[in-house]
C-alpha cells in the first residue's frame, strides 16, 4: 500500500460510521448514522458503492448475517474495519490535522 493512499471524503465518513457502530454496522445503520450526524441525505447505493470500493482496497471486510422475514428473507451484510483500514483512517486524519494546523478557519470565513 502506498503511504500517499488517503481516504476520499465520503470514504472517510463511511469508515468513521463503521467505527462508531461496531458490530451493528450494516447498510441501514451506516446510512442512518451518516444522515443523523452530517444531516446529509445519502442513498443505500452510495453507501454500498463506497463499501465495495473500500473492501476492494482491503480497508473493510464484510460477512452475511442470517436472512430475516422483515427483510423479505434477505440477509444483512455486516461490515468491519480492518487493520489496514485503521491505518488509512489515521493517515488521513494526520494529513488533515497537519494541513489545518495554525489556520484560523472560523475567523477567516466569518
Amino acid at each position, binding site marked *: 500500500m502506498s503511504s500517499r493512499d488517503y481516504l476520499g471524503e465520503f470514504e472517510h465518513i463511511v469508515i468513521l460510521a463503521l467505527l462508531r457502530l461496531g458490530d451493528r454496522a450494516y*447498510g441501514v445503520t451506516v446510512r442512518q448514522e451518516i444522515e443523523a450526524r452530517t444531516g446529509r441525505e445519502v442513498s443505500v447505493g452510495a453507501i454500498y*458503492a463506497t463499501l465495495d470500493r473500500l473492501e476492494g482496497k482491503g480497508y473493510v471486510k464484510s460477512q452475511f448475517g442470517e*436472512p*430475516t422475514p*422483515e427483510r*423479505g*428473507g*434477505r*440477509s*444483512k451484510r455486516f461490515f468491519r474495519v480492518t487493520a489496514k483500514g485503521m491505518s488509512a483512517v489515521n493517515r488521513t486524519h494526520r494529513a488533515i490535522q497537519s494541513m489545518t494546523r495554525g489556520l484560523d478557519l472560523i475567523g477567516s470565513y466569518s
Partner: protein
Amino acid sequence: MSQASLPRIASWLVDLFSPGEDAESIPGDLLEEFSDLAAKSGVASARRWYWRQSAKTIAHLIGSGFRVAPWSIVGTVLVGYLLLVFGDSLAEEAIVGVIHLRRHHVTPYYNQTQLATYVLWLNTSILIGRLLMSLIIGCFVALAAKGREMAATITLGLVVGASLGVFFLVGVLRHWPQNAYLSPFLVDQFAHSIAIVIGGIIVRESRLAMTRRPSGV
C-alpha cells in the same frame, strides 16, 4: 401490511440493478427501512422515500459498475456491437434464403395480392428475425458481464441507439425532403435497443431466480 404496499416497479428495478455481491443486502436494507418508515410516517410517505432512494441507488450502482469493472463492460459491449453488426446481416440473409427456398421459381408469376402477401411475409420475418438476434445478443452480453448485466446491456442499447440516431440524422440531411420513409425505419431500429435490454433483463431475472430464497425464511 407494509411489505404488501412496497412500490413493486421500484423494487423490481432495484433487484435488477443490484450487483451479484449486493443482490440480497441492498433490496433487504431498502425493505427494512421502508417498513420502519411506513409504521412511523405512513405508507404514502414511505413509498415516496422508497422511490427516491431507488432512483438514487440505481444511478449509483450503474456508475459504480463502470468504476469497478470498466474494461469488462467496455469489452462485452464492443463484442456485442460487432456481433450485432455481423449477426444482423446474417439473420437477414438466412431468412431471405429460407423464404426463397420454396418460392423463387414462382415469384415472377405472382399476381398483385400474392406479391403483397409475399412482401409482407418477407418484411415481417426479417423484422422478427433481427429482433430475436438483438435479444440473443443482449442475453450473450449479459451472460458475459457477470453481475453487471443491466449496466452492460443498457450501455450496448444506448450505443446502438446513438449510432442509429447519427445514421438517421445523416439520412435526413442527405435525402431532404424525400425522407418520409425514415421515421418508421428509425422506430424499427430503436426496437433493437429495447430487445437488447430485454435480453439483459431475462438473464438477470434467471440468475436472481437461481439464487433467491423463499421470502419468510
